[in-house]
């Protein structure tokens, strides 16, 4: 990689980051929380890109990791008093990681379509459990809880405003992006990409492909759980709908719309999808998925690279 390209990349990165930092100061309240929401869904989509774009495994089960992140955070926020931010992260991540380990162990035995269907069915298992275990999860009604304060023990504790919440989410998402980028460029990430390109040859060279895949699914699930925790903090409720497989499907849509294998593409895809939803629900109310679905089908057929696909090379340098 030439130094000039590297400078170009980091320049672009800083400009986008600066815009996102400044955004809540100029945007009205609605669009401010809308932007925060885009970042959270973007993180979820980005976590799934590690599988779809870099390892070549389409996961239709990300709602399970996301949902368990939400419910884990919910448990922590309901049990601790006053609600503790860091306990929410701990609980949410542990719950998501446990589920991810379980799903990874079984689903990585299968490839391609079978992997997609298996992850889908696993997410439905957790959906059914959460939906029917009313005493613990509130069943269909879900759980509501209070938003924790932004606190560092022994230093300070301030309640979240919509600006500080946005910056907090932005910090977590940016850090996650940098970590995921580092992962995909590491030797480990290279092995994942070689699994995507040619699994048999990777195995023949001597890499334990299954173990790499399991770790990839677990990492991906962990970041999806992180997105779940952020979502719980922002929206202050947990509902079984977030574990339903339609959420996983939307995550895949974000990826395809934005461009897989780019990490930032999924965030752009999430933004594009949420903007389309916002725009169309003014005309079509709750049937916005009809036009959005048609656009998605057209993009699958005519634009499989997604919105940022043309930048794939430069983003991965």
């Amino acid at each position, binding site marked *: 990689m030439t130094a000039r390209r590297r400078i170009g990349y980091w320049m672009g990165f800083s400009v986008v980051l600066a815009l996102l930092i400044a955004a809540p100061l100029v945007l009205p309240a609605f669009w401010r929380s809308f932007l925060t929401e885009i970042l959270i869904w973007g993180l979820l989509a980005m976590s799934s890109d590690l599988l779809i774009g870099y390892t070549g495994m*389409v996961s239709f089960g990300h709602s399970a990791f996301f949902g368990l992140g939400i419910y884990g955070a919910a448990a922590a926020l309901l049990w601790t008093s006053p609600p503790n931010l860091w306990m929410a992260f701990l609980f949410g991540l542990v719950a998501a990681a446990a589920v991810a380990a379980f799903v990874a162990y079984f689903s990585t035995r299968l490839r391609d379509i079978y992997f997609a269907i298996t992850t889908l069915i696993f997410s439905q*298992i957790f959906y059914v459990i959460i939906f029917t275990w009313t005493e613990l999860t509130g069943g269909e009604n879900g759980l509501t809880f209070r938003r924790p304060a932004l606190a560092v023990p022994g230093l300070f504790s301030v309640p979240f405003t919509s600006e500080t919440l946005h910056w907090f989410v932005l910090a977590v998402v940016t850090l996650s992006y940098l970590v995921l980028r580092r992962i995909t460029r590491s030797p480990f990430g290279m092995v994942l990409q070689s699994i995507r390109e040619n699994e048999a040859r990777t195995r023949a060279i001597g890499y334990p492909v299954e173990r790499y895949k399991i770790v990839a699914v677990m990492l991906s699930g962990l970041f999806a759980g992180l997105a779940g925790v952020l979502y719980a903090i922002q929206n202050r409720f947990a509902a079984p709908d977030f574990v339903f497989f339609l959420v996983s499907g939307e995550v895949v849509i974000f990826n395809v719309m934005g461009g897989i294998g780019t990490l930032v593409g999924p965030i752009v895809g999430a933004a594009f999808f949420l903007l389309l939803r916002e725009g169309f629900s003014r005309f079509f109310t709750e049937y916005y998925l009809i036009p959005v679905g048609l656009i998605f089908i057209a993009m699958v057929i005519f634009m499989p690279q997604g919105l940022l696909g043309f930048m794939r090379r430069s983003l991965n340098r």
Partner: protein
Amino acid sequence: MAIDQLLQAIPLDQLLIQTVNGIVAGMILALVASGLTLIFGIMDVVNFAHGELFMLGAYVGVIVLTATGNFWLALVVATLVIALLGAGIHVIALRPLLGRDPLTTILATFGISLVLQNYALWQFGPVARKIQEPFSGYFTLFYLDYPWYRLVIALLSAAIIGALWLFLKFGTYGIWIRATTQDRVMAQAMGIPVPQVLTAVFAIGAGMAAASGVLFGPLVGVNHAMGVDWVLKAFIVVVVGGMGNLGGSIAASIFISLLESYASIWVSPAQAVIFSFVVLILTLLFRPTGLFVPTPK
């Protein structure tokens, strides 16, 4: 002594009733799943929209039934209309994806399922419709009046699947279809119009989904979300039975439906689903390619 008590604890009459229930549900599931497995085995397309075709079939059935009052006409019309719709979907959305990664077909059909489901919600509203069953005779099964209609559904499903099997085995076009499955390029070279064959297969699968939708309509209400449960169950069946394996998915349908019926003696039906999930996990652990297909090593 202990064995006697154990035998006492098992409700024999309930077991028998649930056996009948399980076989009936299994035959309908087999009809849905065999369309899915046909489409997958022949075209490498995972049809996420299968449940929506099932649901739209039931709605077309409702419309024809209210217009004419004839259940059998409704069944035939719904099958034909949805088969045509399936052919249209294939030509517009799936033919351009021929030769691309099979995973892209999951994405396209997922998009289609979202569109169709929301279209049904928009067109028909959230209130469930009812299909009147064509006849309402009962026979006595222990303390229950068991409707004849349920048995007729099971038999009809079996007949449709049997007809499909005979067609694939002996029909000229059936042989075309099998040739396309085995080697698409060679089939093309022998003069078989492969793209049209694929469209026809998708249409047949869609028609079968619609037929099962109409047949099943009288047992539950018809609403826009009814397809989702079925497609998930059919996916489980297709994985357990082995993708693209017709006989395997029929056996797996009956096996899983029986299991869920027995389970629902003791737990609620919503939780009985977990048993089929467990079967799926065990299958994946020990026979990742399905119970009825030898595992390649």
